[in-house]
């Protein structure tokens, strides 16, 4: 697809934000309103020029997410009982089991979705929040990409919860083998939901605002 140059409504050397022009834009549909309008006339979404409580909400959800992630790793995700033995496996335990079966690719997918993505997300959201608090001017494009990535990839952590759901529903073979979900599945799901909410609470416009407000 070709890219069309929209140009800017502002002066040619710089770009103007809706806020700088005394306007407020709807983030749902893009409609622009005069400052002071409370609801979008097109889609009825509430209008906020900048969400100044954004960072508070981000930190609150993020901390909740990190707290929920701890029991998700220490408690068992799956309770397996077979004719011979009963066993409990944690997230990491499940990855190790998969490697024992020789399924390295799948082990990598699970490890990536349940450990790398959540931890990476905690770090990325912290970095975004701290950099906005410090009014950092560095690497705005990089940080915006990080935000996009966090929003896009965060939901994929739910893979492990769905794996547990399918395994527990499928493996119910009376005495031969049964699998039941462990409590870690709940805390892991909570952790994913909380960090998704943290990412959604972040107002990406704050990344770009620093080059508008002179520091002198």
């Amino acid at each position, binding site marked *: 697809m070709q890219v069309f140059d929209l*140009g800017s409504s502002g002066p040619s050397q710089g770009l103007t934000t*809706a806020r700088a022009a005394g306007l407020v*834009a709807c983030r*749902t549909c893009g409609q622009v309103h005069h400052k002071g309008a409370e609801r979008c006339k097109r889609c009825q979404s509430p209008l906020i020029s900048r969400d100044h409580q954004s960072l508070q909400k981000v930190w609150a959800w993020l901390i909740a997410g990190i707290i929920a992630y701890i029991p998700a790793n220490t408690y068992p995700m799956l309770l397996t009982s077979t004719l011979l033995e009963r066993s409990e496996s944690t997230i990491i335990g499940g990855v190790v089991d998969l490697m024992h*079966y020789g399924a390295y690719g799948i082990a990598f997918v699970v490890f990536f979705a349940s450990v790398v993505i959540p931890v990476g997300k905690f770090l990325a959201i912290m970095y975004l929040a701290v950099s906005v608090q410090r009014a950092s001017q560095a690497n705005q494009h990089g940080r*915006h990409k990080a935000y996009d990535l966090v929003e896009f990839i965060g939901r994929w952590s*739910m893979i492990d919860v769905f794996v547990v759901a399918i395994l527990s529903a499928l493996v119910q*073979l009376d005495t*031969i083998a049964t699998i039941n979900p462990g*409590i870690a599945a709940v805390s892991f799901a909570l952790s994913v939901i909380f960090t998704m909410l943290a990412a959604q609470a972040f107002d990406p416009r704050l990344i770009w605002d620093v080059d508008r407000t002179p520091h002198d």
Partner: protein
Amino acid sequence: MTDAQQYLDDLVACPQCDTLHAAQDLPEGMRACCQRCGHVLMSTQRTAVARIIALALTAFVLMIAAVTFPFLSLNAGGVQNATSVIDAVLAFKDGLAFPLAVATAFFIVVLPLMRLSALIYALGPLVTERKPHPGARFAFGLAERLRPWSMAEIFIVGVTVALIKVAGMAAVTIGPAFWAFAGVVVITILKDQLICRYSIWEALDQAKA
């Protein structure tokens, strides 16, 4: 409409970084990105609405099939157990995990269906150039807001992982619902790529006038 109002309607602000741009009619098959952060602001495909509706209807029907047909069944040592998508949701029904059963039901069945119904409701009349239903804007806004929470595609990857875990210990039979669900995922992704928020809001606006 006053001049000032007309002027506001000709502007489009980037939802990600708030930069203002002057909206223009894009030539067919092009897209326009934010000058500052690169977010896609508009893309044009004239027949997009009809295609979105067609894909949404297809996905809706497949989703119904995915929920009702047998999904997977497992056979080991003469004992067999069949599972539907609903059974997977109900895996969490006991004790403390119950809220997770509700959440899972929403993520993999309820929210995808809600998104599809909202899209069909909001955009259906546009295909035949009729007036949109009341609440069409709300329905489209809802469909867009629910996007991150609708996790059918993640579920299908989860199922694949589970299958590989089980395949070593027992024989797994894949039922028609599995393929229906996989179809829902592919079609939903195709459909979401066609959605250009800006053009659909404009279309909803023009249809009203």
